């Protein structure tokens, strides 16, 4: 039996975009993944050799709404991960 998976689009902004060297990526994650699981996956995949990638202090939006890290991710969600904002 194969584990079901979903495809999502993940966008990165500001210092995180620069550290990762990409502004967005399409990822496949298991169904019923949470934002926290996604962050851990990104940290493990891209942060291992790059101490600049620290996803502990980021904010996350799903479909352009700020969410808590226990939010469940669904097929075709647009996830944005970014550092604290500094506008005005």
């Amino acid at each position, binding site marked *: 039996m194969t584990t079901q998976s979903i495809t999502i689009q993940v*966008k990165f*902004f*500001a*210092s995180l*975009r620069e550290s990762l060297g990409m502004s967005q990526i399409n990822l496949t994650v298991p169904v019923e993944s949470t934002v926290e699981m996604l962050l851990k996956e990104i940290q493990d995949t891209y942060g291992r050799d790059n101490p600049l990638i620290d996803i502990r202090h980021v904010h996350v*939006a799903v479909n*352009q709404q700020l969410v808590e890290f226990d939010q469940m991710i669904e097929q075709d969600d647009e996830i*944005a991960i*970014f*550092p*604290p*904002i*500094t*506008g*005005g």
Partner: protein
Amino acid sequence: MHSVRVQEEDFSIHAEWKACHERLGGKAGAVVSFVGLVRERSNTGNVSRLYLEHYPGMTETSIEQIVAKAQQRWSLFDVIVIHRVGELQPEDQIVLVIVASAHRADAFAACEFIMDFLKTEAFFWKKETGDEEAVWIEPTLNDTYRREKWQK
């Protein structure tokens, strides 16, 4: 009535004020405007360039929500917010807020409120280039304090 724009292009406070004035007719007794500029010095040193990044869609929505909060709190006839993004230099205009109301107290307060929330709740990220290196700006405690004083 309100208008929110996020753009790379510069803006003319005169043109925006004139358009606002014409829309208002004789209703308003006060129009307060604020322009934020790029300073040549910041807390960390000289600034030669400032880069502003945003999240298209979410940034505009976050500004709309700030304007809506101000409109709930004060009686406002018109609100205009223009926020620039992209590469800027010292002396450049970054942000314009125009607020029109019947009396000056509401217009002054709402203009300050909108600016304080733009600093802390609008989705922008700033990167300053100084004499040697470029650094992403961290939020300041003062920005947080200024927003929180409105919640007391």
